[in-house]
Every structure is written in structure tokens, then in C-alpha cells.
């Protein structure tokens, strides 16, 4: 590009990315590149798939089953009707209750009879209408209402409320609440999700001496370094914890040899970076803040640290920097800057001193730095630094090594020539620059090392531990490099020292395959025989016996996902309790999620905060967005959004668990509720010459799923709690109930259907036999059936309610009362056939005896089975309930107090 006749080269460092703000300049002249479909956002966009909860998917298969059942009932009815018509075909003309013969028009013709074939068809269609309640359409509406209620409680929960950012939990998708209770895999982004994306300078090792600020200083000992310039006070924006001893040393001057080292060290920190200082006004006109801005948060932290120790970077232009060293302004010429790149893993800067000497400052990752450090000098210092780095990284700190080299004039000229040539060349500039940098970055003298803490979000290690206890596999997908990822892994307790680690990091296909297969073999050996069979229950077991971790990087992933190695990778990953994927591109994140989604039926959850997590969030069964610093894209794409990673624990363990239990029960109950009603209608049809007369009048049929039984199931679906919050949080294992699909599965469905059959038989046949050969009319017995089925299904629900609040009481008993009222109202309308039937029937003892007998006999088997299951085959939830009850009985009075305290302490 030519500006003012000068040729300028444009490279990756000139790119202004989308969303950037212009600072330190008024305008930029630019060329738009990678626009339209080539933008990062578009390339990483995998399209928002429509999500559907697993429970609902399973439910649909059960509904198909019910449809077959419905068709079967209709077939039976219509075939029987046809057979009956055939048997009586000679009598139909004059049968008093059929009277086919129509003579009213003067000639003999058939009245509404078209042969048994057509009659059969009519009966079939009519029976579809009569029995259609079998397909619980109302269930979909109730489910929506229940989900809205659940979402309300999730939003209102004070545990999910982030005080720091004043942000509530957001429920952006309303149809997958219950999936939160079945998560088996959690895919997490690192930066901004696990960590706060705030770097903090923690320790320094200078010339073989360890100065750890964390050990010696406490929070309130943060020293603020300030500087007075022309009557104004300059302060760095961020406070840094400092080591008192080191501070004293820096203040005492740099005359001696050690002081010189410390001087060089901090000068390196202040100079060897790409930070731009920015002076901001504050409300106090005499105080100004210096804000360090740069692309790397690590560099920011280091610069702030240097400032705290008195090396304050004040000004940076393209040619020079100004650093204030303990009140003394010094100007250095920046002659060359070798930017950080991932191959060299270091950066360097060449400073020209005022006395015309030149110094090269290098900082970089330990592995790359030790290769360029002159090992012949100061071996003991190098060793001491190495041990310090080891100890820093074992506590999860990010380490950098600082080095320095004096350049003499000839070396400098040589470098300068090469640098100029390289930086203006048009072809292969990056490679040339790298070459120049590597040439000069050698023979470096070690100065020391820094340790920066990538601050974890509050409660992250505890949360991860809980998640793992619950049998959830945590995968961390990060764009960071492997070392960083591993250090974060340690500090967040994702990785522990007892784990077997498999690291896969290779640059070609073959070695990648080999390493994967080796790891797989190892893991198979590691997993002794019992684990493979009972994989589903054994996950917590495997964590206990042989924890394994897989660490894999992006390039290897590319090879693996391209190849047929997917299967192997998945098998390996499945055995590992922790998987760390480093250096992955956003779209690869989605690829990993879909890999897991494809191979298992387990539910996946993705959590992230940035735009680069969007595709992963959309791909996973449940996407959670953290409303953090990195913009709103993740939140916009997510199903649920919250303020902190640690909220994941209450979200899954409490709300996910409850939602799943509630909805699972609700679906089964609604199947039962409608099926029992339809079956009663069906049994009656068998006694009406298969003609679809309904004893229960049509008003009651209609109101059945609207007034008589709808409210309690919704209320219970929203309010019932199987266990208290505390129990659920204290025992993460209880989450396994959802993973094992204990609240809704095929077995439960068929058990419920068997129960339905029995209950419908009792409800129908007890009155049938009790009133057989009596004067009872259709309306009276219909009222008995109506009342008994309504009370029955409500009692059935009442039997399964775990937690009775006044709302539950009101809805269940209110529904029963409402039914009585409705039936009465229907029976006082003279133009309806059942006029006064309820008063006549309810006046007899037989009616009430029947009602009582029906209720007891119908619920008896369920009660027995329920008790046997609870007592002899208790599930975790049942046991925990008993524990809860026991504890409650022990401290009847202290209970509410402790419960409240518990809530007020959400960090737990």
C-alpha cells in the first residue's frame, strides 16, 4: 500500500478486528479484508439448531405407542360393533332400541343404516373422537406452563444471582429445562469461564532468589505506588500485591550487583512488551491514573507489577519509551521489537541506552527460553530458577522466563541491517523476521522468572470437584496452549497429581495415530475388567480407582477428526474423567461436542462466555452462556445465561434435578390420567352393544382435563421437591438419578400403564357389578364414574407428592371440590338428560360405599408396589429423603434457622 508516496507493508499486526475501539489515534486508513461470508463470525457459524429436550423426544415415542393403543381400542370397538350388527341384522328393523325401519315418509326405508361395512367405518371414526383424549394434547400445554414456572424459580433463585455484576440468571430457552438434570458431559471454555481473564502478578524469581508475594503479603497490604509529576500524582490503575522485601530492595537502590540484576529484571518487565500506557483523568484533578492497554493480559499484569515496584512505563511511541524509575524519568530508544509467535514462544526488544549501548531483553516460555540461555554461565542460578518455575507451575501459575543480553556495536549493526531488510520485504516477511529474531536471541543471560496467576473465578475448583463427584465428565476446550491449559487444570483441581495423563500432541498423522493407540492400550490396561460392563453406573467408580486425563491439542484433533480415528479417540476420552483440549478453533469446539453427541445418548452441556464458544453452545444439548466481559454473543446463542461458572452446580444439581424429576413424573402421570379415563369409556362401550355411548356426560368429559385434573399436575410439576437444596448440593451423587433416567423410562411407562389398566378396571367394574340388574340410570352411574375417576387420579397424585405446601393442598383438594361443584351444576340443568341424577345417587349409601371401595381397591396395588420399592429396593433419592427426615426430627426447632443460613452462604 502506498501512502504519501511511501510504500508500506501490511501484515497481521495491522489488522483492526471487528469490535475494536480506536485509541491513541484519531483515524485509521484501511483496506477491508475478510468481509462478508469470510468474516470470522460467519466462518464459525454452524447455524442454530433447534433444540428439543430428551425427555420430550422419549415422550414422543411413548405417545406413538399410545397412538397404536388408541387405534387398537378403536379397532376392537368397530370390529365388535360390526359383528354385533351382523348377528342382529335380521332384527335391526324392529329392534326397539335400534329401529332401522323408517316409515315416516310413507314408504319403507332404512334410517341411518348403510350396511355393516360403512357402519364399522363410522364406528371407528366416532371412537377415534371419543377416545382421542388418550393422546394427551393437554400434556403439551401443561408442560409449557410447568416449564415457565420452573424458569421463574430458576430466575428468582438467589443462588444464581451474581452480585458482582448484578446479573440474574436468564432462561433463554423454555423447552429444555429438564435436560439440566441429565447432563453427563460438560464442555467448558477456559478463559472467562473458568478464569476471570484477569492476570495477577504473583511471584518473581530474580537471580535465583524467590520473592513470592502471595506468601508474605495479605490482601490489605497492597501497596500503591504513585508518582508526582509537575504537581500531579500518577498512579497505575491496578493495584498489585507486592513482596515487601523486594520492594525494600528496589527502594534501596541499584548500586550493588544484586541491585543491578533487580534493576534489569524490572526494566525488562516494563520494556519488553507491547503495552500502551494511557493516562486517564479521575474525579480528583491532581490524581491521574495510568491504564496499561495491550493485547495480552499477561503483559498488562507484568507492566503493572513493574510499576508497583517503581518502574512505571509512562509513554510509548513507535521509536522510544519513557520509563519512570523511582521518580527518575528515563528515555530508551526502542530499536527493534520481535513479536511473540507461537513457534519461538518468546518475544524480545532491543533498547538503545542514552550512552549508546544496546541491550536485548527477552521474555518467553520456559522451554523456549532455556534453549537460548547461555548454560555455561551461572549454572546454579539457572537451576535455582528452574526449581522455582517448577514450584510455581505446580500451583497453577503461568510462568515466564526473563533474559537479557548485552549487544556490542558490531552485533547491533549486523542485526539492524538484517532487521531492516526483513521488515520491509514483501515476500515471506514473517519467516524472515523470525529468522532475524532467532539469530539475535541466543546466548542470553538469565535474569529470573515471573509467575502470573490466571485468576480462577470464585468457587471454580469446588464446582469442578462437585461436578466430577456427580459423575459428570468435564472437558475443557481452550484456545490456550497446552502448558497454560495444564496449569489451569491443576489450579482448578481438574487435574490432580494422581492422574494418569495421556498427552497427544503431534504434527503429523502417523505419530498421532500411534500415540492415540498407545494411550488407548494403556487406558484399557488401566481400566480393569469390571468397569467396561457397567459403564453407566461405574463412572464414579472409575474416578476413584484409576483417574485418567487426556490432554490433546488442536492440530492432533484435526488429524484425528479427519481420519477414522474418531472412534478410538472417543473410546479413550470416554474412559478419561477429564479431557483437556488445547489450541482448538471455535468450530473445532463444536466438532468435539458433536463427536460426543453422535456417539452416546448422554446429554452434553457447553458453557462459555465468548463469541468463540457460540458454535459449541449451539451444538451441545444444553448451552450455557456466561455473561462476562467478552461480549454478548455467547449469551445470545445460549439456552441459559448466568454470571458465574460456579452457578452451574446449583443449576444442575438443584434445578436440573428438580426439573427432571418433576417433568418426568408429570409426563407419566398425564399419560396415566388420560388413559384411565379413556379405558373407562372403553369398558362401558363393551356394554352398550359397542355403540360409543358415554355414561360420563360430554361436559364432564370436556372438563376432565381442564378443570377436574389439570391444576394439581401443573402445581406439582412446578412446586414439588424431592429433596432439599442442601441435600442435593451436599451429595452430588444424587445427580446420577437424572443421568440414569430414573424418573422417566420405558419400564416406568409400562408399569404406569399396567397400573392404569388395573385402576380403570376397578373404577369401571365395581359400580358395574354393584349396580348390575338395578334401576340405575345412565346419568347416575356416569356421575359415580366421573367422581370416582377424578378423585382417584387426584389421590394418585397426592400419593406421589413429596412435599406438601399449602398450594399443593389447595390445588388437589380444590380440584376435587371443584369437580363436585361442576357435576352438581351440570345436574341441575333440566334440559340435560342427567337432571338431578347426582342428588338421587348421592342419597344412597351404595353410592358412597362404591366410591370408597373404588378408591381403596384401585390404589392398593400401587401403594404396595411403591412401598416395596421404597423399602426393599430404595433408590438414592429415597434414602436421602429418609436421612433428611431423620435429621429434621433430631432438630425440630433449629431447622428453619439452619436452612436460612445455608442459603445466605451461596459460595458453599
Amino acid at each position, binding site marked *: 500500500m502506498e501512502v504519501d508516496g511511501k510504500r508500506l507493508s501490511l501484515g497481521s499486526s495491522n489488522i483492526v478486528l471487528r469490535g475494536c475501539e480506536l485509541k491513541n489515534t484519531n483515524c485509521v486508513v484501511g483496506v477491508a479484508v475478510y468481509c462478508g461470508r469470510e468474516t470470522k463470525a460467519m466462518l464459525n457459524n454452524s447455524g442454530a439448531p433447534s433444540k428439543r429436550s430428551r425427555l420430550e423426544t422419549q415422550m414422543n415415542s411413548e405417545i406413538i405407542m399410545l397412538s397404536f393403543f388408541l387405534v387398537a381400542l378403536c379397532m376392537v370397538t368397530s370390529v365388535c360393533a360390526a359383528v354385533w350388527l351382523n348377528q342382529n341384522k335380521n332384527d335391526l328393523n324392529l329392534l326397539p*332400541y335400534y329401529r332401522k325401519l323408517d316409515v315416516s315418509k310413507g314408504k319403507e326405508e332404512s334410517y341411518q343404516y348403510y350396511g355393516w361395512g360403512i357402519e364399522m367405518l363410522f364406528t371407528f371414526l366416532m371412537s377415534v373422537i371419543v377416545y382421542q383424549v388418550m393422546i394427551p394434547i393437554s400434556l403439551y400445554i401443561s408442560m409449557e406452563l410447568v416449564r415457565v414456572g420452573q424458569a421463574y424459580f430458576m430466575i428468582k433463585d438467589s443462588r444464581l444471582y451474581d452480585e458482582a455484576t448484578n446479573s440474574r440468571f436468564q432462561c433463554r430457552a423454555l423447552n429444555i429445562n429438564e435436560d439440566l438434570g441429565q447432563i453427563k458431559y460438560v464442555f467448558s471454555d477456559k478463559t472467562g469461564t473458568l478464569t476471570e481473564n484477569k492476570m495477577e502478578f504473583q511471584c518473581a524469581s530474580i537471580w535465583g532468589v524467590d520473592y513470592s508475594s502471595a506468601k508474605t503479603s495479605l490482601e490489605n497490604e497492597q501497596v500503591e505506588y504513585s508518582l508526582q509529576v509537575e504537581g500531579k500524582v500518577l498512579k497505575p490503575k491496578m493495584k498489585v500485591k507486592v513482596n515487601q522485601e523486594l520492594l525494600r530492595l528496589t527502594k534501596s537502590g541499584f548500586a550493588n550487583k544484586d541491585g543491578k540484576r533487580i534493576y534489569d529484571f524490572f526494566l525488562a518487565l516494563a520494556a519488553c512488551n507491547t503495552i500502551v500506557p494511557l493516562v486517564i483523568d479521575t474525579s480528583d484533578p491532581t490524581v491521574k491514573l495510568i491504564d496499561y492497554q495491550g493485547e495480552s493480559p499477561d503483559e498488562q499484569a507484568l507492566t503493572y507489577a513493574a510499576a508497583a515496584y517503581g518502574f512505571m512505563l509512562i509513554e510509548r511511541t513507535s521509536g522510544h519509551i519513557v520509563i519512570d524509575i523511582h521518580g527518575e524519568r528515563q528515555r530508551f530508544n526502542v530499536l527493534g521489537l520481535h513479536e511473540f509467535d507461537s513457534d519461538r514462544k518468546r518475544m524480545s526488544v532491543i533498547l538503545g541506552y542514552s550512552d549508546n549501548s544496546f541491550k536485548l531483553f527477552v521474555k518467553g516460555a520456559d522451554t523456549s527460553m532455556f534453549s537460548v540461555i547461555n548454560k555455561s554461565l551461572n549454572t546454579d542460578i539457572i537451576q535455582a530458577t528452574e526449581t522455582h518455575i517448577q514450584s510455581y507451575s505446580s500451583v497453577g501459575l503461568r510462568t515466564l522466563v526473563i533474559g537479557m543480553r548485552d549487544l556490542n556495536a558490531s552485533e547491533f549493526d549486523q542485526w539492524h541491517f538484517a532487521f531492516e531488510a526483513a521488515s520491509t520485504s514483501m515476500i515471506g516477511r514473517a519467516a524472515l523476521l523470525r529468522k532475524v529474531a532467532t539469530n539475535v536471541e541466543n546466548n542470553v543471560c538469565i535474569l529470573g522468572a515471573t509467575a502470573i496467576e490466571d485468576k480462577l473465578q470464585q468457587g471454580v475448583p469446588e464446582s469442578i470437584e462437585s461436578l466430577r463427584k456427580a459423575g459428570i465428565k468435564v472437558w475443557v476446550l481452550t484456545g490456550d496452549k497446552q502448558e497454560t491449559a495444564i496449569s489451569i487444570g491443576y489450579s482448578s483441581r481438574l487435574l490432580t497429581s494422581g492422574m494418569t495423563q495421556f498427552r497427544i500432541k503431534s504434527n503429523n498423522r502417523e505419530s498421532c495415530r500411534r500415540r492415540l493407540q498407545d494411550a488407548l492400550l494403556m487406558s484399557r490396561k488401566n481400566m480393569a475388567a469390571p468397569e467396561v460392563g457397567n459403564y453407566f453406573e461405574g463412572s464414579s467408580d472409575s474416578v476413584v480407582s484409576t483417574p485418567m486425563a487426556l490432554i490433546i491439542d488442536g492440530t492432533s484433533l484435526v488429524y484425528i477428526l479427519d481420519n477414522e480415528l474418531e472412534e478410538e479417540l472417543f473410546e479413550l476420552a470416554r474412559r478419561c474423567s477429564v479431557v483437556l483440549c488445547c489450541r482448538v478453533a471455535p468450530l473445532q469446539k463444536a466438532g468435539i461436542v458433536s463427536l460426543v453427541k453422535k456417539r452416546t445418548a448422554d446429554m452434553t452441556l457447553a458453557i462459555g462466555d465468548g463469541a468463540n464458544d457460540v458454535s459449541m453452545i449451539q451444538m451441545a444439548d444444553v448451552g450455557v452462556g456466561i455473561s462476562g466481559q467478552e461480549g454478548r454473543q455467547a449469551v445470545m446463542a445460549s439456552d441459559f445465561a448466568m454470571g458465574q461458572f460456579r452457578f452451574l452446580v446449583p443449576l444442575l444439581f438443584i434445578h436440573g434435578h428438580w426439573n427432571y424429576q418433576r417433568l418426568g413424573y408429570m409426563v407419566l402421570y398425564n399419560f396415566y390420567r388420560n388413559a384411565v379415563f379413556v379405558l373407562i369409556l372403553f369398558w362401558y362401550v363393551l356394554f352398550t352393544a359397542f355403540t360409543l355411548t358415554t355414561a360420563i356426560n360430554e361436559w364432564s368429559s370436556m372438563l376432565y382435563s381442564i378443570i377436574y385434573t389439570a391444576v394439581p399436575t401443573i402445581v406439582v410439576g412446578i412446586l414439588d421437591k424431592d429433596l432439599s437444596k442442601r441435600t442435593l448440593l451436599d451429595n452430588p451423587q444424587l445427580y446420577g438419578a437424572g443421568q440414569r433416567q430414573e424418573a422417566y423410562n420405558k419400564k416406568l411407562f409400562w408399569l404406569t400403564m399396567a397400573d392404569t389398566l388395573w385402576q380403570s378396571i376397578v373404577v369401571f367394574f365395581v359400580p358395574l357389578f354393584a349396580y348390575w340388574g338395578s334401576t340405575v340410570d345412565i346419568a347416575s352411574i356416569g356421575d359415580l364414574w366421573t367422581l370416582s375417576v377424578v378423585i382417584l387420579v387426584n389421590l394418585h397424585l397426592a400419593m406421589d407428592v413429596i412435599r406438601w405446601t399449602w398450594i399443593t393442598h389447595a390445588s388437589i383438594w380444590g380440584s376435587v371440590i371443584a369437580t363436585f361443584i361442576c357435576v352438581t351444576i351440570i345436574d341441575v340443568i333440566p334440559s340435560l338428560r342427567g337432571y338431578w341424577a347426582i342428588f338421587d345417587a348421592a342419597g344412597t349409601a351404595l353410592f358412597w360405599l362404591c366410591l370408597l371401595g373404588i378408591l381403596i381397591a384401585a390404589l392398593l396395588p400401587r401403594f404396595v408396589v411403591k412401598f416395596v420399592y421404597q*423399602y426393599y429396593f430404595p433408590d438414592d433419592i429415597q434414602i436421602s429423603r429418609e436421612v433428611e427426615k431423620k435429621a429434621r426430627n433430631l432438630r425440630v426447632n433449629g431447622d428453619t434457622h439452619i436452612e436460612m443460613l445455608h442459603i445466605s452462604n451461596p459460595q458453599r
Partner: protein
Amino acid sequence: MDLDGGSSSTISTGARAIPGRPVRHGALYQFTQQNLPACKPVLTPAAVISTFLLMGFIFIPVGLVTLRASYSVVEIVDRYDIECVPEEYRSNKVAYVKDDSVSKNCSRFLKVPKSMRAPIFIYYQLDNYYQNHRRYVKSRTDRQLLHGLGYNDTSSCRPLESSDDLPIVPCGLIAWSLFNDTYKFSRGPSELKVNRKDIAWKSDRNHKFGKHVYPFNFQNGTLTGGAKLDPTIPLSDQEDLIVWMRTAALPTFRKLYGRIEEDLEADDVIVVNLKNNYNTYSFGGKKKIVLSTSSWLGGKNDFLGIANLFVGSFSILISIIFLVLHLKSPRPYGDTAYASWNKKSISS
């Protein structure tokens, strides 16, 4: 010292309002945090066993009482639809019943097994008669019964809707097929008085059947289904019709015919002189005459008593089984050793 230290927060933060957060007390807060006071019953063996025992102790006596009530009812049932057809018509009963020239009179002799206290209810019972057939149930117009010709929409009554362009009152299949056997009772030489008033529901007589609706054109068609009605008596007083039009729920049903308001002694012989008019022969229906006393439970029906006894004894049986199981292999209440995660670590 900052108040957020570990020990101090466990004492009183519960009541302290934190700015920016919702107030942490009050019913609404309890509600939104799903902490409403609640009762959480848990089934314990003791409770379950005693529930079953209690149920047994309730249901067995109730069953016994109902059975006793059922046994106290004296019931005489006599099927007459075959016996009342003369021998020569036995092979073609339909022809007999359709032939108006043949006398339909018939006499039945009923022996009273035990003494029967007044009132003794007289029912006729029809078997295999689908009064609940959909076609049949629909074939009536309730408003016409109340308003007579004042209500014209009688389409649901087809094919017995109108005769000579006027709606039939009462129209429809149900009315058309009105039962028309009649009974006269005598004990020895004296005739037993049968009270045929007040056999229909009072509510039906007062509000469902019109006091000014007269069956002026009833049963005028070529096909006669059953009884004819006296056109001078309003529908509200046609109690046989009202009883008949309370359509029975089940294919075997009884309808009240009248009451004998005298006691009958054991071994009395009741002579029933009946007119066997109603045609059930074409569809194999049975006709029976029933004399029955009543108890607090209604008529004779052993089912409920037996069912109660069954439920009661079943409950006791279950409670005994549970008791034995509980004593033999009790599971400690609320013992986490039985939780799945603990079980696994024990076994492995």
C-alpha cells in the same frame, strides 16, 4: 476486621438485608426460593403396616354389614317371557306377540320364601335390552317433553319424529318403545293393592315433564313399539313413561312398576295376572317380574359385601407379610450405606 470473615457470616447474615439483592424474608421470598413451609411425609414400615391393618379392620366389618343388609332383602324373581307363551306358539314367539287376536293374559304363581315387610317393590326386569344403545339414547327431545308443541326442533327423534306433519308428543325411540306388560296381584282370594303413584323421580315429574303436555298423537303410526298413553293425562303424570325414559345404564336393568303396601307372610302364594304384550322375543331379551323388599343399601346385591371383605382381608394379609418381612430383614431407616455410591465402593 471485615465482617465477611468466616465465623461471623454463620451467625446472623440470614436476617441482614444485602443491598442489591432481594429482601431475604417474607412469604414472597420463601416462595421464590421454593422454601415454603411444607410437610414431607415419608413412608415408614410402621406407618404402612398399621395403615393396612386399619384398612383391614375397617373393611371387614363394613363388608359384613353390607352382606347382612343384602341377605336381609327378600327377593322373588320370576322369568315369565317363555312360560307365558302358549305351547302352540313356542316355536314362533314373535308371531304370538305380534298377533293382536291372541289373548296375552297369563298367570304366574309366586311363593313367598320369607316374610316380606312393606313396602314391597315391584320391578320388571329386562335382560339383554340395550337401553344405553347410542341410537336409542339420543332418540328423544328433552325440551319437547317439557314444552310439548311449543318446542319444534325434534330432529333428534327421527325416525319417530312426526306423524301427519305434527311432531309426535312424546317423540323418539325411547317413548315409542314404552314397556307395556301389565301386572295384577292377588293373594288368595283378595286382590293386593298396588300403589303405582310416586314411582318416578319427583324432580323429573316437576321439572322435566310438562304439566300441560298431552300425548295427543302418540303411538299412531303403523308400527306400534309399545304402550299407548292416555291422551288426557299430562306427561308429568305419566309415571310409567317417566320411569322408562330414565334410560338404564346397563343392558340388564329393572324398572319400578309399583309398590305393595302390605306385608307378605312366608309361604303365601301370590298370583300375578299379567298381560304379556311387550315384544322381547325378536332379540332374545328376557322378561322377569321381581318382588323385593329393600334395605339401607337398596336391593339384593352381594358383590359389594364380598368385595369389601376381600379388600379387608387382603389388607390384613399384606400387613402380616410386611410385618414378617420387616422383622426378618429390616432396612435401617435413612442409612446411606444403601445408597448406590456407597454400595459400589463396598462391593468393589
